[in-house]
């Protein structure tokens, strides 16, 4: 059974991905800022992706757990990392508080870097000879350069370039790294946007409908699959731009 680590697994898209991965037969380890009220059905570690020590401890715990259970249960160790943790700030730049700018960059970009750096070390150990998968998240806000999303879009553009570089570093180990960049999805991250604002973005997509969490999972599932081994360093825009 392949282990997938999912950040942002306490709510929204991350939780949907974690639950669907579990249903598809993956072992799931979630990481989230807060514990959800209801049992998510998979182990969830509470921690902040901006806290490097917390991220390192999370992956160290997965390593210990993997080492102790692999022999008897046929578990395969860490196979994939899905970095779904993210925050958004929709605001005109002059009106954006500096603390918000820092938070968005820290969670969306630095957090992904922390998780990829610590997670990659474990992937190299567990899947060094077999391979592995990294799936990061961007948004169509980056290629569309949406007004009012400069800080958020910049953080996601950073994730895209970071992932393309990472893909080259991990390629010799048969580990792929890709980015899923969806349009608006009905999750908490859209809180604060009016329906008109959301519709305006959707109308700029090639496929003019709002994506469902399941649309995202369909793509993530493919990227996690062994059959996607020739796809790496790619930014896949869900909905099309």
């Amino acid at each position, binding site marked *: 059974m392949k282990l997938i680590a999912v950040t942002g697994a306490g709510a929204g898209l991350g939780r949907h991905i974690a639950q669907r991965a579990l249903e598809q037969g993956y072992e799931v380890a979630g990481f989230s800022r807060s514990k959800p009220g209801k049992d998510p059905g998979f182990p969830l570690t509470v921690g902040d992706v901006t806290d490097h020590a917390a991220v390192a401890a999370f992956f160290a715990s997965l390593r210990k757990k993997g080492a102790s259970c692999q022999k008897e249960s046929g578990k395969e160790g860490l196979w994939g990392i899905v970095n779904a943790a993210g925050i958004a700030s929709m605001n005109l730049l002059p009106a954006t508080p500096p603390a918000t700018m820092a938070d968005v960059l820290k969670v969306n970009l630095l957090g992904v870097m922390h998780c990829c750096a610590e997670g990659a*070390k474990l992937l*190299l*150990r567990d899947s*060094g000879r077999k391979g592995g998968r990294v799936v990061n998240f961007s948004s169509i806000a980056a290629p569309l350069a949406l007004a009012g999303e400069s800080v958020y879009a910049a953080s996601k553009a950073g994730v895209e370039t970071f992932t393309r570089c990472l893909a080259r570093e991990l390629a*010799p*180990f048969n580990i792929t790294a890709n980015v899923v960049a969806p349009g608006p999805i009905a999750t908490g991250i859209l809180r604060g946007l009016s329906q008109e604002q959301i519709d305006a973005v959707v109308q700029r997509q090639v496929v003019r409908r709002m994506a469902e969490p399941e649309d995202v999972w369909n793509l993530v599932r493919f990227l996690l699959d062994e059959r996607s081994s020739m796809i790496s360093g790619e930014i896949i825009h869900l909905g099309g731009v």
Partner: protein
Amino acid sequence: MISAEEAGDFIIRCIRAERGEQKDCPPLTGQSPLLGRDAVLTSLELVRLLLLLEDWCAEKGASFNWTSDAAMSGNRSAWRTVESLARHLALAQKDGRKDER
């Protein structure tokens, strides 16, 4: 505490195990380069070596932090040669002990 000699021996054993018996390879010494054109390991093998070192240190109750701004510098990297890596490792353990006091 891990000595530089002990670390150097371990590093050479790991490189031998990684490369296998290769007739046309120069003999491994403390000056064998780990980075650059003449490196005795590929970048992939170097990463594997660093992971092995991390495990080896952990077994000995020590820690090995291989993050460094100078990691890939041809002049300043602690990973330049077998000897520089071994010395870096021994020094890190010493510094760690100092910090504990």
